């Protein structure tokens, strides 16, 4: 019996990287887990199989698809009472050059998609009398980053969403918090390295040099914080942002 036995989690953006780590960790703690990604894939199916969960592909930017996904997860696994909003779309560009449609795609996916996801899950959490929402923001949502206006704005918006829903839902035992990961070793890093024209190893080293702990984060580091914030024994921690970044910011929200 893990500390999350009897609970049902929905993890968005779980085909790889951090989302897959969250799903594995929550399952290891005893939860039934629906794993979502934008499209169906062998990786998503394999992960679901591995952890005894359910693959639920759906584009989080599509409100109807999100609601249908939550329905499907709850029909198969029981009412979802843990939501981990992990999905994200990242696109970097000089501010004036950023294509308008692409700029909005970042916002609509990251901020809008999380909004729909929580909307879809709330009636189920209310029916169960309690819920936990863990929103994955970003260090860049706290401190900003050049060429990342859309991404940083979307992630800062998630922090405000966390604070507001933290206040709005706590009396119903639905506890909303966020995590702001620092640089973490996920497939996105290879994409960033390619875009910058450097090797992945060089990218690791460059980032690690800015982190007091001397390394970048592992997906499991972030997943551990997800499990901590999904703990139903605690309600006093609410509306907060937990930075998991090896000391790079030392608490700036």
């Amino acid at each position, binding site marked *: 019996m893990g500390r999350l036995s009897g609970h049902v989690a929905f993890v968005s953006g779980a085909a790889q990287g951090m989302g897959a780590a969250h799903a594995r960790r929550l399952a290891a703690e005893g939860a039934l887990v629906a794993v979502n990604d934008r499209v169906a894939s062998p990786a998503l199916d394999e992960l679901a199989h591995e952890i005894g969960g359910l693959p639920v592909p759906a584009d989080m930017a599509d409100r109807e698809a999100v609601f249908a996904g939550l329905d499907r997860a709850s029909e198969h696994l029981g009412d979802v009472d843990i939501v981990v909003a992990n999905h994200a779309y990242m696109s970097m560009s000089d501010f004036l050059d950023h294509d308008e449609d692409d700029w909005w795609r970042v916002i609509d996916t990251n901020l809008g998609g999380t909004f729909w996801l929580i909307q879809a899950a709330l009636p189920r959490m209310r029916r169960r009398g309690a819920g936990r929402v863990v929103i994955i923001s970003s260090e860049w949502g706290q401190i900003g980053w050049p060429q990342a206006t859309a991404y940083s704005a979307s992630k800062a918006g998630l922090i405000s969403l966390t604070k507001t829903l933290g*206040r709005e839902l706590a009396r119903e035992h639905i506890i909303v918090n966020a995590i702001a990961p620092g640089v973490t070793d996920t497939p996105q890093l290879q994409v960033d390295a390619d875009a910058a024209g450097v090797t992945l190893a060089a990218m690791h080293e460059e980032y690690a040099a800015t982190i007091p702990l001397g390394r970048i984060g592992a997906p499991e*580091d972030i997943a*551990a914080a997800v499990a901590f914030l999904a703990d139903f024994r605690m*309600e006093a921690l*609410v509306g907060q942002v*937990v930075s998991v970044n090896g000391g790079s910011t*030392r608490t700036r929200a």
Partner: protein
Amino acid sequence: MSQRVALVSGAASGIGRAIAAELSDRGWAVLGVDLGPAPHCAISVEVDVTDFAGVARAVRQAEQQLGPVEAAVSAAGHYAIVPISEIDPSAWLRMLRVHLGGLAAITRAVLPGMVQRGSGTIVAVTSELAIGGGDSDSHYASAKGAVIGFVRSLAAEVAPQGVRINAVAPGPTDTPLLAADSPWRAPEYLSTLPIGRLVRPDEVALCTAALIEELPFCVGEIISPNAGAVI
């Protein structure tokens, strides 16, 4: 296998006691430090945390018996609501000596060993009032704010050597530090809190234990189980 050893100051009551109980439940041998005897502890030492030499001596003796201290929690503290003009020098000094000095004394006693072994972790208990401030809380908030500055700086200094420093910042918690007639217990105040009640000591203990053994990539971080008092 021998038990891992954790020092907890203020272990005799309130938040410190809950932390000692949680760590003990998780298999730690707890070295409790307080002015009086502390339950849930493998060893309970009666010493004033403002006494640097006394704390160092207690740690040395306990380590001979239990082994090296791998985690330390500074939870000793006292609280008083006093308007600024009524805070006299002795009240001001005592507030700083207990909260900031107590943390410094513990750190001086356990940090060298942690650095030498290349691992270890310290959690300071600060306060929501250090972040949001409060009416007539100036000396308490000053001391707890100083704790935050200490934690952030020390975290940057010793993380490269494998030692993690973090803090928890509880909101008003249901402990003996809050008198029965404390304004923090008034229904009118509690109704302003998002969760509608005081923080329970065991909730602070869960956050503290998580910083010690579940969150290895948190450094210089402040976790705020504050009932939503400061969001």
